[in-house]
């Protein structure tokens, strides 16, 4: 059951050949997908052999198979985590019922919308990152971004499979629309704002994979709890792949910090101007990028108080992070959850019905996870004897959605006036000068074992290969 059939046109472990209608529909979608990849996938990558991880089965031994793959020949396919015998709906009004193997009629449109929204982010990030290969700081990093890209592509496949298999003609139309929207397009943009932002440089890319892909992790984890079993199994397998993306982001930023700290120690300076003269990214600039990506991504969780989130939960469609490990009634009729609100020029905490505060709860889980990554970054300057520490801005900082959307909040959590915001925004968020400086560092390094001046080599190579391994072969 868990092995993947690569002899088929679409590799899968869902016995696709037994359902000819579905197989034909997906085989019809496949050329459109490949056309999208040719147009919007990583630029100039078609002739490269890349040392990639490809799933050859979904058990632990098989899903991390490493070998050189010519990029367009990567075998995107449909892989679901093995079914869990006797799995139940674990929360909401249907708690205790057997998990659904088909879409419950009354939840059809809402479930479709959840899947489309998740699916839309996957090709969006590939589009956002498509030019970055041209300015890679090393072969190791080039390989990593390609790995992220092909797996985002596979995550699109995972969502399109659900749409085709369970939503009939509507689902097929949504599958086509997923290939038609374009990140940042004025007429036909991607659904969520953060996925229409540009990813113009590698610092942005690493921040995006560290912070925004982590939103992906939490959304997938909440959907992995779903009572709709095919969605749950799909998301569970996607989560194993997502971990690599978070690693690329966290270690990427860590290596930039490492390099800057090394140069700071060698030249005994913390002057940003001097450090820029030495060709590294000063720590305050990195902090500003962190502020930006953290706040933009925070909006992806939606409003603090949301009746949609409440009904998704009650309907058994989307759970909480690690739902089954939480020790409560899993119905949340009478529970409360603390939510912030702005009262005059103060930020206060009120208790809201937990059911309506599920977005906020998921955001808090995500913040805790981001914070622990930031703590690990802080060990680098600490080790080097440099007093600088990175901090996450306040939840209300630079928000467009929810209770803070109408207010200006400083990184340290004060409600500030329009004037003060305008005065300080350039200290808190990357300015065009900052972005131009970071952009000016982006060159292309492709000699095995060599790294751009602004980033340190990784502690280990991929799959135990040496750091100077030829991770990408140009043909």
């Amino acid at each position: 059951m868990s092995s993947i059939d690569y002899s088929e046109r679409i590799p899968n472990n869902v016995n696709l050949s037994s359902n000819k209608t579905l197989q034909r529909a997906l085989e019809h979608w496949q050329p459109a997908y490949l056309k999208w990849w040719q147009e919007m996938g990583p630029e100039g990558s078609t002739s490269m052999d890349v040392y990639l991880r490809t799933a050859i089965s979904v058990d632990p031994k098989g899903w991390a198979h490493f070998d050189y793959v010519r990029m367009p020949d990567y075998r995107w396919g449909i892989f679901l985590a093995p079914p869990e015998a006797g799995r139940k709906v674990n929360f909401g009004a249907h708690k205790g019922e057997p998990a659904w193997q088909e879409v419950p009629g009354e939840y059809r449109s809402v479930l479709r919308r959840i899947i489309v929204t998740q699916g839309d982010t996957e090709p969006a990030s590939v589009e956002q990152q498509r030019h970055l290969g041209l300015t890679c700081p090393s072969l190791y990093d080039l390989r990593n971004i390609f790995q992220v890209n092909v797996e985002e592509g596979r995550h699109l496949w995972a969502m399109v499979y659900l749409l085709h298999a369970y939503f009939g003609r509507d689902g097929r139309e949504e599958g086509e629309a997923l290939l038609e929207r374009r990140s940042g397009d004025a007429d036909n943009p991607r659904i969520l704002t953060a996925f229409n932002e540009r990813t113009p440089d590698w610092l942005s890319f690493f921040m995006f994979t560290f912070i925004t892909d982590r939103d992906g992790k939490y959304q997938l984890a909440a959907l992995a709890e779903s009572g709709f079993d095919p969605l749950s199994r799909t998301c569970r397998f996607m989560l194993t792949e997502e971990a690599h993306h978070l690693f690329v982001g966290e270690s990427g930023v860590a290596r930039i910090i490492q390099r800057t700290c090394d140069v700071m120690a060698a030249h005994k300076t913390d002057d940003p101007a001097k450090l820029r003269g030495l060709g590294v990214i000063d720590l305050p600039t990195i902090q500003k990028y962190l502020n930006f990506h953290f706040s933009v991504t925070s909006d992806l969780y939606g409003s603090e108080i949301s009746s949609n989130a409440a009904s998704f939960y009650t309907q058994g469609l989307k759970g909480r992070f690690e739902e089954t490990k939480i020790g409560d009634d899993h119905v949340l009729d009478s529970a409360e959850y603390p939510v912030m609100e702005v009262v005059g020029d103060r930020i206060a905490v009120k208790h809201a019905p937990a059911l309506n505060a599920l977005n906020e709860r998921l955001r808090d889980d995500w913040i805790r996870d981001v914070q622990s990554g930031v703590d690990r970054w802080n060990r680098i300057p600490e080790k080097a004897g440099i007093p600088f520490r990175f901090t996450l801005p306040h939840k209300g900082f630079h928000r467009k959605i929810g209770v803070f959307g109408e207010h200006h909040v400083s990184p340290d959590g004060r409600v500030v006036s329009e004037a003060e915001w305008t005065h300080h925004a350039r200290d808190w968020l990357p300015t065009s000068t900052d972005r131009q400086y970071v952009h000016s560092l982006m060159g292309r390094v492709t000699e095995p074992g060599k790294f751009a001046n602004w980033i340190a080599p990784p502690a280990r190579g991929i799959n135990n290969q040496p750091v100077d391994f030829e991770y990408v072969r140009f043909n």
Partner: protein
Amino acid sequence: MNAELVRQHLIDPEICIRCNTCQETCPIDAIEHDARNYVVKFDVCDGCNECIPPCPTGAIDSWRKVTKSKPYTLAEQYAWDSLPAETEPDVGAPGDVPEEVVRITAEATAGTGGPLAPPWSAAHPYVNLYSLARPAVATVSGNYRLTAEDASSDIRHIVLDFGNSAFPVLEGQSIGVIPPGVDANGKPHHVRLYSVASPRNGERPGYNNLALTVKRVVEDHEGKAARGVCSNYLCDLRKGDQVKVVGPYGTSFLMPNHPGSSLMMICTGTGSAPMRAMTERRRRRMALKEGGELMLFFGARAPGELPYFGPLMKLPKDFIDINFAFSRVPGEPKRYVQDRIRERGEKVARMLADPNCYIYVCGLKGMEAGVNEAFADVCRAHGLDWSAVLAGLKAQARFHVETY
């Protein structure tokens, strides 16, 4: 033997990103975490390695040698910011080195009047962890022919995996193999020594394995047909076979570790095993740019008879200066390593004079005299006295010979 050495599975907290994949994957719940670290329960983990491939960072693939009764506790692991340095658990007491090993070592190092001290920056070697009475059992994980199919010699690259038994080796060390069965007199076969051909962190980095370079012996030194018991046993091994191993041995023929140190390596045939180990060690650390040069003189009958010829040809010229000498290429004059040393006299003289250059000679006994004469000639040409130079080299532990 004192306390039993084992490998303890750990997670490197400096690299781990806390993605929880390992804990999710572990079939027997040997992994847990707190708000700081992910840790492995020593008494639960059975080394099934299911968690290794899914880890996105490689942090999961960390191991330390510990005495079985004193593993790192969970409390210790939770408190770490980084992995502890490799410690040196109690090593087996000397004295139970097999007689055969003592005799072979004495013969092999006769050229330098017995084993010298190791280079000052050599890593501390473990020796004699496994005795004849209590050998380690290794599993064959690969056996490949290195010489061309039409070559007169069958030289093989054999990879032995030690599973969960600690078998730490350094480049230049040897291990003993005990062939199964008994000899014509009904006694167990003598142990045979083989130089390790892989670097200290394994034939595959991070794996508990090592490689040997073994030539199938089909004739004795005089050229009469004679089937070598142990070499034929090793060359015929198949993947999955188990082999009894003793050792490791060797505290002298070790490589320097300090940045800027250079190696001059002179070998013939399977004498290339320790050279391959040292070269590979240096190759894996190339990115660290520690400086120092590598110069290799390698003799064989013909390119097809030369083990590791293909991989050697692929090494960058600025990483290693390779000088082959072939003695049986049709239509070409016979050339031996000593001829190549004379040809490269200028650089050889410079390296002899460099206090950071260490010289290693390994191969058949017959090569020693020729190499010595070549060094003497090079010295004469550069106004030096070889016997004085050699005394200095020995005093500084810069000249190491193993011939058989």
